[in-house]
């Protein structure tokens, strides 16, 4: 009980308090510990946690293969890929320099020297630097295997966002309409095509939408048609009289309108959310430090 519960709670309370009050205590050794060593230990333990994650992954995939569960063949692929990347990361330097040229293996570098008849010698990179050497094997794996997979996983979402926009986003009430309108104005106003849509076009569109709205209440075709024509003529005459340029009136010019929405009402909502989240995090952090929150040891 002491090892499994009270010591972890004590560790959180001690180091949490030290880190929090370290901002306010003007003592050199405490400051040095909080700013440097405490954070280094945090990084080191986080690194071990990554190893734990990798081991857990291997364990799960191995069990799947051993128990011949559904899709076990793909687990073989996962395990093989893991060991392939692990070998490159830990057992192969993968970067041997002959002058400015980089080769994956010592043998390839030596063969290049023989083929070119050069007097250069092979220089291997240091362990540690081998993962960041341009042209090395680890970077090759990053560029051609990790990057395409990682990037494409995220890019898939573009298609699903489009599908969701079409099938799920409905203006069921005023709030949803506000959300959709803000989204549409931002989407069109922030890209170059938004500046090609003149305010005149937006105003004509508003006249059209207004006419549809009028049509739901007034059934007379003559009146509705009259409203539509009056609207169009009114906008045109107003524009000609006021000598509007292609970007006026600014309130109907999508880039200006989106800029206003983005920097004024949107900012207000975002700021409220930021302050709310900030207050929540402060309270939760204090709860962890005072031992009131024990979810990290599995307690409710």
């Amino acid at each position, binding site marked *: 009980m002491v090892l499994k519960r009270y010591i972890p709670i004590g560790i959180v309370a001690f180091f949490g308090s030290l880190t929090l009050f370290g901002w306010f205590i003007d003592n050199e050794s405490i*400051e040095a510990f909080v*700013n*440097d060593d*405490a*954070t*280094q230990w*945090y*990084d080191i333990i*986080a*690194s071990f946690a990554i190893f734990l994650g990798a081991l857990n992954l291997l364990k799960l995939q191995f069990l799947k293969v051993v128990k011949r569960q559904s899709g076990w063949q793909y687990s073989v692929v996962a395990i093989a890929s893991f060991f392939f990347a692990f070998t490159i990361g830990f057992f192969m330097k993968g970067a041997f320099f002959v002058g400015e040229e980089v080769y994956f293996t010592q043998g390839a570098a030596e063969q290049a020297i023989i083929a070119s008849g050069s007097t250069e010698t092979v220089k291997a990179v*240091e362990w*540690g*630097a081998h993962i*960041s050497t*341009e042209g090395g094997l680890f*970077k090759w794996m*990053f*560029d051609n295997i*990790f*990057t*395409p997979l*990682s*990037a494409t*996983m*995220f890019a898939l979402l*573009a*298609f699903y*966002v*489009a*599908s969701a*926009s*079409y*099938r799920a*986003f*409905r*203006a069921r009430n005023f709030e949803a309409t506000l959300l*959709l309108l803000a*989204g*549409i104005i931002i*989407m*069109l106003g*922030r*890209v*170059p*095509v*938004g*500046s*090609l849509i003149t305010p005149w076009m937006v105003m004509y569109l508003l006249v059209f939408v207004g006419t549809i709205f009028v049509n739901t209440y007034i059934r007379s075709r003559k009146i509705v048609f009259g409203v539509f024509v009056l609207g169009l003529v009114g906008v045109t005459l107003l524009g000609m009289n006021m000598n509007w340029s292609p970007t006026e009136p600014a309130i109907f010019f999508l*880039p200006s309108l989106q*800029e206003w929405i*983005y*920097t004024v009402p*949107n*900012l207000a909502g*975002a*700021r409220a*959310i*930021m302050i709310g989240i900030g207050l929540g995090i402060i309270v939760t952090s204090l709860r962890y430090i005072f031992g009131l929150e024990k979810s990290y040891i599995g307690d409710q």
Partner: protein
Amino acid sequence: MRFLEDMILKLGSVDRRFIFILIGLAVLIPLMRPIDLPIRTTPTTEKVYNAIEEIPANSKVLMSFDYGPSTKPEIHPMTLGVMRQVLRNGHQIYITCLWPDGLYMALDALEEINQEFELVEYEDYVLLGFRPGNEAIVKGLASDLRKVYTVDSKGTMLADIPMMEGVNNLKDFQFIFTGSAGYPGTFEWVQYGGDPTGVPLSSGTTSIQVNEVMPYVQSGQVKGILAGMPGAAEYESLINTPGIAIQGMAAQSFAHLVIVLFIVLGNLAYFITERRERKY
């Protein structure tokens, strides 16, 4: 009218794979057949550009590559643009990474910039590299950089690098720029870097993060923001160096138009269905 309504309703129940194809084509065709569209800069992008222009001569600029390959299309053009503007103005660049992938993004950026500027390592730039620890790293940099980094990414001792002379913490830099894709990123740089030290800070973020960072921009804690690929395109036009962000704007524009049309069509189908159900 009835025929039109029936057609809209039919479109509303189409297989989603047709929608995927339409989006794919809306993005692919403008990329294969480039179209020039006018780029209009926004005040938030101009703030970043002006903030960098106002850096005093021969300054030290810290750039943090806090993104990975999944967000490279959005943020990489920004970091390239900032590096170009900083180097053209004669400043030195110090590169740090809070993301492990950020190191490779930095290597790619340096390789590309080197073709233009013929950079000399340890005279024009130092690649400090990646350190795990998220906000703890930023806090560490603010207090003692040499405890966080004893060597650079190649294993060279910082004490042996002439460019690192006099650089001991964040206050020794005149400007900080972070290309940020999430956590850790702009938030951590503001909370543990910019605010405690007072060093001017700017940021380029993914479009998704922009809204969260906007309050910092309005309060002045961040000097402007480059908002996603459109922000990167605006920045490229400000520094007069068109790149992949400007090239992608046509595809971005058409994709947005298609999605807006989808939303409008979807809602039209919804309203027609609602009206018919009310009648009956």
